[in-house]
């Protein structure tokens, strides 16, 4: 079927993009916190195949960047020193997936740092920071969306299935959460949690805040599904045969909500990634030196960077494929929303 094909295409695209970020250690040439104070704000190095004399080289190379004469932050290519790109090189030690120790990097160069996306104020490689930052931002989004959907599922099922005062109470509470613009809600929650915390704590704090912010909308949707599902004939029949409430919910009612939840997930994840970026951009998120997509962009708040370092904007463009993937998946799921289930 055309619809299913399109959905799995988008899923494959997303998986590939996420794999690159998860395996950041391999794809990134350097450690994201490694500094090179002698070359701050280096522009991206150009990859060449043809050298200054007009000779073609099969192996791509870059020219070493050196400060322009009489300047300390303007660079130019030193055509006397070409640095060949090497693939599958031994580089710095890192832990793949957090536990597999490895030296291998996709590319690199001998005795020379090459920054294909330029470097930041401390001379840190922007490409490496983008890839590692994706781990923070994407997983904050994914985990936050997971918690939100879990909460939404629980609250929606409780409200819809049992009804009565529970329904009233929970839905009034949901209205309160929906009455706040989401960013204000995020701010309010973040405001009452500790500000000066370590990177890992901050990461989990943000996930908790994100998870607590968005549950109201999925809860309402799930409640609607549960309300209609519990009056279906096969559910009544199962109840007549003596099925317990827990069994009914698990076996017959909540599976009906799976397509709603899936669609919500595709919508929520990019929203939450954006929310994490916003918090980190404003300095309320994961602190330095750990990179996140938000803090990567926050250097653009300085006027001088904005004016003279255009490459600091490149990470923003590199995020677009991720958002495109989620948007594509989300709209496909909405279109073919009905009883679509993975693996069938």
């Amino acid at each position: 079927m055309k619809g299913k094909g399109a959905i799995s295409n988008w899923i494959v695209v997303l998986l590939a993009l996420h794999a690159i970020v998860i395996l950041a250690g391999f794809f990134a040439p350097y450690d994201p916190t490694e500094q090179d104070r002698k070359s701050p704000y280096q522009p991206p190095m150009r990859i060449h195949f043809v050298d200054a004399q007009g000779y073609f080289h099969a192996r791509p190379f870059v020219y070493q960047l050196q400060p322009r004469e009489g300047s300390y932050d303007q660079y130019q290519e030193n055509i006397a020193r070409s640095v060949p790109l090497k693939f599958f090189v031994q580089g710095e030690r890192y832990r793949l997936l957090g536990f597999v120790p490895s030296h291998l990097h996709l590319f690199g160069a001998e005795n020379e740092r090459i920054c294909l996306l330029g470097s930041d104020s401390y001379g840190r490689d922007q490409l490496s920071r983008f890839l590692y930052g994706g781990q923070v931002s994407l997983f904050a989004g994914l985990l936050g969306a997971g918690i939100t959907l879990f909460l939404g599922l629980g609250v929606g099922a409780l409200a819809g299935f049992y009804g009565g005062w529970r329904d009233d109470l929970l839905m009034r509470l949901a209205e309160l959460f929906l009455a706040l613009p989401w960013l204000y809600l995020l701010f309010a929650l973040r405001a009452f949690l500790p500000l000066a915390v370590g990177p890992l704590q901050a990461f989990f704090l943000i996930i908790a805040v994100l998870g607590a912010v968005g549950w109201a909308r999925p809860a309402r949707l799930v409640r609607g599904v549960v309300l209609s599902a519990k009056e279906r004939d096969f559910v009544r029949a199962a109840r007549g045969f003596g099925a317990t409430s827990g069994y009914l919910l698990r076996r017959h009612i909540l599976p009906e909500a799976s397509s709603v939840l899936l669609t919500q997930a595709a919508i929520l994840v990019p929203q939450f990634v954006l929310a994490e970026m916003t918090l980190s951009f404003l300095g309320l998120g994961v602190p330095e030196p750990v990179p996140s997509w938000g803090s990567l962009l926050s250097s653009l708040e300085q006027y001088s960077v904005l004016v003279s370092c255009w490459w600091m904007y490149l990470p923003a463009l590199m995020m677009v494929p991720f958002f495109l993937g989620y948007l594509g998946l989300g709209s496909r799921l909405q279109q073919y929303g009905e009883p679509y289930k993975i693996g069938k």
Partner: protein
Amino acid sequence: MPYLLRRFGHAIFLLIGVSALAFAFTVLSPGNYFDEMRLNPQIAPETIAALKTQYELDRPLPIRYAHWVSSVLHGNMGFSFAYNSPVAPLLLVRARNTLLLTITAMLLAWGIALPLGIWSAEHQGGVSDRLVSSGTAALMVIPDLALALGLLVLAVKSGWFPTGGMVSLHFDDLSFLGKIRDLLLHMTLPVAALVLSVLPLLIRHVRASVAEVLDAPFLLAAEGHGIPRRTLLYRYALPAAANPLISLFGFSVGTLLSGSLLVEVVMSWPGLGPFLLEAILARDLYVIIGGVLLSTLFLVGGNFSADMLLYWADPRIRAEARN
């Protein structure tokens, strides 16, 4: 009008609920404004304790809430520790600036989305429709933050627009028209960022709901009567498609307010955004609660006006309300 009265009562309930919730959240807070003072050896512990007592931070939560509510009713909305003044006057100036942005952006966004969406629905599948839908898709995949920063880069490179603040330094010396021109120039970038961030959503919804109505038999009949195309679209199709769009109007208020928070910080617009951020970093409790409550007020106000609009536009709701 019991319908509107009911909606109004609901709005009041939301405001009270959100404020109570915000107070309940303060329990989570691990410190307060005066804790930072403890690090300063020049301030005696007794002074800090006295300040805490003065601002009632040592009293139980329900009492603080009751006092805060009475402060709101007196038009103060609590006391800002950092500014040493009542919160309300501080907030109102910022809120005015935020509203200036969001309302302008709202009018512009809907002013663009309605004709474009209707046009796109009328030419379904055509080149122009596909152009519009790929344009909206492109806007949707650019993160809001990147969009705002991109506009800022554009402004800096071109030098067409001022890149921060609300007015120029020599604002007071300008003539009346000059002042308006200066303000408009400063508003352009933030408003553009806001409009571009909500526009794709609005256009898509307008297109979808108008396209649905265009297939209805009553429009075919009207067309058969020889009614001109423009009248058909704007007098017949649009009112019929209005119901979901008016609900979207209420929703877009919330989106714009959130978007404004970020855009204001990026473009250093002196609105609620930078003010609230500063308050969060300083743990200025009542400013945070005040800002959150004010945003709720705006959103609830937006929803309430959407309800009123719906009442006016949709005869079914009027009939339902009468019974």
